[in-house]
């Protein structure tokens, strides 16, 4: 079956622009996670949804980061007024139990 998909795969933004990153989870997966992976590092947790409810957003680095999953399926991670330090790969994962299945990621470069 189809895995987790993310779009766009690559995004270049000028500093100060807003960006929106999309995640399509595996059909039927209740849980959805966003992670940020800086160059040369492991992924770091950003936020978690169970269906449409955002149950944990403790990893979001600032109030410029906002995530939603209005119908409990597709999720969007929005970053307002992007800064250079936001450059990273943003990974989405979905889960039915404990195992998390990851998408290919969106590589964001802020210039």
């Amino acid at each position, binding site marked *: 079956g189809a895995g987790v998909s993310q779009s766009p795969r690559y995004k270049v933004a000028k500093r100060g622009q807003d960006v929106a990153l999309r995640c399509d989870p595996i059909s039927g997966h209740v849980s959805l996670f966003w992670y940020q992976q800086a160059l*040369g590092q*492991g992924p770091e947790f950003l936020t*978690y949804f169970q269906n449409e409810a955002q*149950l944990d957003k403790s990893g979001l680095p600032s109030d410029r980061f906002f995530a939603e999953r209005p119908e409990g399926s597709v999720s969007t991670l929005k970053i307002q007024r992007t800064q250079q330090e936001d450059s990273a790969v943003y*990974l989405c994962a979905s*889960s039915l139990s*404990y195992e998390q299945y990851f*998408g290919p990621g969106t590589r964001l470069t802020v210039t």
Partner: protein
Amino acid sequence: AQSVTQLDSQVPVFEEAPVELRCNYSSSVSVYLFWYVQYPNQGLQLLLKYLSGSTLVKGINGFEAEFNKSQTSFHLRKPSVHISDTAEYFCALGDYGGSQGNLIFGKGTKLSVKP
């Protein structure tokens, strides 16, 4: 606080040689552990998992890992590596203690298999 330490950032090895990638963790509650592999410009692929029960777990591509609670380790092993195993490997921890299920990752180990 929980943490995952991958002791080697890079591991070079010759083809058909055995390899061990080390992972140690710290947690005050019961844990479950994963190993993921990441090929260039791709997402993370689940290699194997330890949730409970048998401490020796087998995964895809001939990899296996052993959960050792007393040593707080979950080292990944393969008896004979192939060129195609060249990738970055991440150890990840989740806990049964009430977190929402988000994983804590190590910094990764780059495995480089040479002919």
